[in-house]
């Protein structure tokens, strides 16, 4: 069992959780993920680490309510426990002094971008961060990201806060203005990562994306998370989660994310019905 030691709503559909997992915290690196199973009947889902604290023995997860597991997580409070937390899994982000890097976080993807931007800044890079959300009430961690960036640009799709538009617009401007960008790291919805990759491609700038595939074990055992990168099949759990965005077969990513759409809806509706009956 893994105890939740702090819990906070970052916005109506996004939850922040600090969870006791000392062994995982000791080994965690930027870009890695954990697999969680909330309860006995629960599914195993991957969540990229948003932070960790070796001294405290905790890991931080930020989850958006999209399916049964994340709805269940949202219902838990400080002091509650989750049944399983497995990690740290996957390869960590490549951290080096590349020069100037652009970190792009979209939606809930802002959370895993944070430790990567921090590590890049610590490694001596000039870090420009772009964070975006559909609207103001879905934005979180602006301060945190500002603290690990030399420059921060915020966008909202509807213009309810900061710059109106999507993250690819400032990304393109930066690339046009600054010929010295060494790499771009983009994390967010698959569609955003695809368009970030398309935006950077003409500039020939290395672009890494963190794929959020469906997984079961997360250790290379099932092959559920397979993606096609540069024409060859990769397992996101052990070969990733970060890949060269210019080489990813995005159509396959979108298709495979939809495998269980119907079942996910059915599961969530059932869970919500149970919640109503019990409250």
């Amino acid at each position, binding site marked *: 069992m893994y105890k939740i030691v702090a819990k906070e709503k970052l916005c109506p559909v996004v939850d922040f959780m600090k969870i006791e997992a000392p062994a995982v915290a000791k080994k965690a690196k930027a870009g890695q993920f954990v697999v969680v199973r909330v309860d006995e009947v629960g599914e195993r889902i991957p969540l990229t680490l948003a932070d960790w604290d070796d001294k405290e023995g905790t890991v931080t997860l930020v989850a958006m309510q999209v399916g049964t597991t994340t709805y269940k997580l949202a219902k838990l409070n400080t002091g509650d426990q989750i049944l399983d937390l497995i*990690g740290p899994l996957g390869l960590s982000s490549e951290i080096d002094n590349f020069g100037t890097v652009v970190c792009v976080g979209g939606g809930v993807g802002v959370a895993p971008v944070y430790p990567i931007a921090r590590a890049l800044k610590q490694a001596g890079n000039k870090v420009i961060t772009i964070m975006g959300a559909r609207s103001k009430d879905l934005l979180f961690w602006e301060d945190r990201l500002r603290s690990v960036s030399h420059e921060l640009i915020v966008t909202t799709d509807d213009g309810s806060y900061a710059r109106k538009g999507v993250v690819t617009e400032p990304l393109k401007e930066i690339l046009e203005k600054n010929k010295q960008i060494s790499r771009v790291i983009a994390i967010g919805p698959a569609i955003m990562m695809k368009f970030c990759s398309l935006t950077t491609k003409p500039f020939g700038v290395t672009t890494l994306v963190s794929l959020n595939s469906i997984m*079961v074990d997360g250790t*290379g055992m*099932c*092959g*559920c998370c397979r993606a096609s990168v540069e024409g060859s099949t990769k397992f996101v759990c052990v070969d990733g989660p970060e890949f060269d965005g210019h080489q990813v077969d995005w159509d396959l990513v979108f*298709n495979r994310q939809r495998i269980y759409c119907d*079942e996910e809806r059915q599961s969530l509706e059932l*869970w919500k019905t149970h919640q109503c009956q019990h409250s």
Partner: protein
Amino acid sequence: MEEKAKPKLDLNRVAMPRQDPKARARNFNEVALGYTHDMALQEANRCIQCPKRPCADGCPVNVDIPEFIKAIRDNDMAESVRIMKGKNALPGICGRVCPQETQCEEVCTLSKKGAPIAIGRLERYVADWEREHSAELATSPNLLPSTGKKVAVIGSGPAGLTCAADLVKFGHKVTIFEALHVAGGVLMYGIPEFRLPKAIVQGEVDYVKSLGVEVRLDSVMGKLATVDELLESNYDAVFLGTGAGLPMFLDIPGENFNGVYSANEFLTRVNLMKAYLFPEYDTPIKIGKKVAVVGGGNVAMDSARCALRLGADEVYIIYRRSRVEMPARHEEVENAEEEGIIFKLLTNPKRFIGNDQGWVTAMECYGMELGEPDASGRRRPIIKEGSEFTIEVDVAVVALGTTPNPLIPSTTKGLETRKNGTVMANEETGKTVKDRVWAGGDVVTGAATVISAMGAGKRAAASIDAHLKSTKS
């Protein structure tokens, strides 16, 4: 002179009662129902207690088979349990999934007469009797005094559990590290409920824990800690029983279409995550109308039979050789056939065909014929020119076998591995070339049987014990 009457051989093997094929094809309950006490007695009485005991030699963990059978005959079930557990910590599992027909039963003296003693069924009977009478048994296993030595066992499958059980009996402190959220390895994620009920596996895991073995779940070694870190901390030895968990794919076009599963994923969803109970359990699985399973081993049979139980209309086994070359146990092929699995033999997939939504809709296959024997001794399948045909499918499961997960070898300095990813270890002792590290089971041999992994775990435990006793603390 009166001639000594030779005892008449009873060649009527007592059949195993099983669920009716029609009924069982739609439920996940155990297929084989187990002997009644009378059946067990009748079968045990057929044993001629020959002095040569070939059966015990035919068992990879050398269970004292004639003795446990004699105890059944004497109606001393507690004694039978004691004899069994002396050599085998997991009899309920072995009695169900061991290929006895190529081991103890193959060499049984009565085998020459075509009616070997049903040792596996008797073993299962003894194990099940113990489970039902555990309260009155209160057996205390013989543990040797504590040596103060600590061993880390990585993986809680058959090899790890057996190795741990023996080591703790020798007096060592043992911690098992398991990557998944339950112990049992392939016994939990791979073999389906209807062949090996998960409560039986957990019962035997609990027995190993009751001996004093600590089991740490959710612990992915190589990530959470490396083998070297374990050795540098306070472990005197490490046993790798990490199995062969990496799925092999066909590497043909269309394999990433939605609806194409590795057998590992398909079975893990069904068994470990209980997707057959969706939506009561959260993990989903696609229930196909027409399901094709590619492969001819036990895993292929398990996948096909799971697909049928999930509710498929038609399930095919697609196998590139003929019936006789199938690596699956004869009994499982028979079970599958009885349940209505359709065998498409001498057939090999060429490519998967999908729709514009990315879902598999069909499989194009070659017809095959058999040529000269290959390295495996089996006749090599050859593509028949112009034999392509298409089968409509909405779910496909690729059950071609598995290779070891590279997570441990790639994070451990000084381990030697073969091209196929298996770890090199001494066949007799399980010792690897790395100091204080042993390995056994599928991680060494590639995918094999539960009992051979248990045998390897047992031999490694003896070797680790000898090593620990020869070194000063």
